[in-house]
């Protein structure tokens, strides 16, 4: 294991896959000369050249659709969306083409591609640059959706996503890029669809993904000082969801809180809760609680933004409530 930031972990995974397989290429806005808006593709143009590191005009529909076509013809594109806010412009290509072509063709075609970039809020980027849209993508059969929370997971999951034969939506978090951790040397895979217990505990299950894992772990640390042992479970892959691991944890603790940054109504936590209820209802001492983002477009003002994003205080309060 070696130290790396989340950003470096992504860089390593992508670099190793591009070295391993000539069919893998990176395409997106400012990925080559600028080395990525968040510097994930640092050094790529130099190593792989413009054939495989492709700067695009600001046309998400066009280059995402083009990548779908390239995947249909046997390449393995990695599309960088500068942020997932801009993926909305490519939604028709993602939903109607990437996700459905395998099914519509009766299995004649596959679309092995990754669409990756940062989602969720950073700091004061306001309404159009701060949103968590994972529920939209998770809704669509034919897509896989991944949202790593640590450098180790980011590297292993991106490697698996690139080797997967399906379109994979890979949602990073802007505020996680500089976070540090340990990653494995060389290439390794973390299978898609397998959750990870980030902290074991017996009293309450905290289900969180992406940046909210950091918030959940902070809350768990504070609760431990009160003698409350929280188990933090990170699904890592949001679709397919590892319901089995979530259910096993909830059966053990009898209590669950879901932490998600997205909007509450029809949010991903509602689906996770439903999946857990189906199999662990009898084990639950209390209804599942959700800590979510505010049901508002993201405001600019710092104090309002803070109020719209889940934090450790709110998670601690929810855990107290579910223990009542």
């Amino acid at each position, binding site marked *: 294991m070696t130290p790396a930031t989340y950003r470096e972990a992504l860089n390593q995974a992508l670099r190793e896959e591009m070295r391993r397989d000539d069919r893998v290429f990176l395409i997106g806005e400012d990925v080559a000369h600028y080395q990525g808006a968040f510097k994930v593709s640092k050094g790529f143009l130099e190593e792989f050249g413009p054939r495989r590191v492709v700067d695009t*005009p600001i046309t998400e529909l066009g280059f995402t659709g083009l990548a*779908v076509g390239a995947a*249909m013809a046997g390449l393995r594109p990695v599309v960088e969306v500068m942020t997932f806010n801009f993926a909305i412009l490519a939604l028709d290509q993602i939903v*109607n083409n990437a996700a459905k072509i395998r099914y519509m063709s009766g*299995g004649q075609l596959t679309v092995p591609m990754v669409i990756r970039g940062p989602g969720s809020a950073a700091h004061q980027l306001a309404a159009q640059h701060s949103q968590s849209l994972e529920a939209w993508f998770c809704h669509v059969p034919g897509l896989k959706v991944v949202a790593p929370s640590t450098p180790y997971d980011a590297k292993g999951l991106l490697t698996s996503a690139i080797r997967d034969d399906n379109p994979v939506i890979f949602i990073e978090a802007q505020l996680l890029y500089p976070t540090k951790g340990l990653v494995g040397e060389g290439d390794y895979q973390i299978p898609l669809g397998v959750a990870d217990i980030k902290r074991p505990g017996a009293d309450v299950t905290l289900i969180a993904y992406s940046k909210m894992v950091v918030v959940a772990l902070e809350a768990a640390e504070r609760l431990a000082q009160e003698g409350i042992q929280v188990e933090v479970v990170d699904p890592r892959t949001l679709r397919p969801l590892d319901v089995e691991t979530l259910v096993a944890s909830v059966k053990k603790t009898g209590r669950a809180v879901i932490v998600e940054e997205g909007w509450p109504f029809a949010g991903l936590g509602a689906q996770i809760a439903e999946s857990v209820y189906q199999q662990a209802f009898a084990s639950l001492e209390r209804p599942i609680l959700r800590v979510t983002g505010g049901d508002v477009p993201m405001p600019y003002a710092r104090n309002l933004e803070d109020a719209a994003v889940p934090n450790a205080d709110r998670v601690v309060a929810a855990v107290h409530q579910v223990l009542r």
Partner: protein
Amino acid sequence: MERAQQFHLYRQMLLIRRFEERCAEMYALGKIGGFCHLYIGEEAVAVGAVEVLRPDDYVFSSYRDHGHCLARGSDPGRVMAELFGRATGLCKGKGGSMHLIDVERRFMGGYAIVGGHLPLAAGVAFATKYRGGDQVALCFFGEGALPSGACHETLNLAALWNLPVLFLCENNRYGMGTPVERAVALYQDVSQGAKAYGIEASRVDGMDVLAVHEAVSAAVAQIRATQRPYFLEAMTYRFLGHSMADPSHGHYRTKTEVDEAKQRDPLRLLKTRLVNEGRANDNEFTRIEQDVAAVVQEAVAFADASPFPSAQALEEDVCS
């Protein structure tokens, strides 16, 4: 062009015509469901263009895709079975009329979001270039797709990156019920839109299969030689309604207009030419007619005898 090839073009157009006439009957009988957009009147475009391609070239189409698929050589029985929603269909009955796909023939599919398949064709061309191949991606679309963002973004990318795509705009003058002059700013010469992106463009009489064949031959040769995209506008006309759900005339165009267009029926144009040039006699046309009738009859029989998809098929082919 050799006489035999001209007859072949005629036969292919006739196959599409008779096949689709049977589609209309089968639709009325409830054997074909959903939206069903017939290509009758436009056959010369698909046949004249596809005939030019090599087997390893790629073809993309819109939701009005039966003609392109048949022109590419797909088995009429498996096409009809797909329209019937049967397990033996090209896509195991999961695609239907608007999503015929036959990868073996590099018929990459019919797509039903207007303009949405243009980037796919550019992507296949991108892959070809990436690998150093010389295949061409032929992309059919209606003039209704021209104002879409997908079209403009794709034209820009194809021109910018020198992608070997033949953009073949089938201008049948109506996007459903809206005439081109009320939808496309440069309606008098839509190729100006492509030229604005630096793509060479021209126009061809889409009712004349020999003219289409000649224009596409030149375009494809140029694309292979220069690795640059090309835009061809084929002026054509759909004789029936937008889909099986609407009549051929009434709301948005007159019977006189439709009748006038039928005077330039692509089958009649080629037949008249062959007869006038003394290259054919009635017996030959009768024989082609009989051949095609037998093929279509067999296709319907095959589809009718085929099983519906099994219950297990529902959840197959979603993900690997």
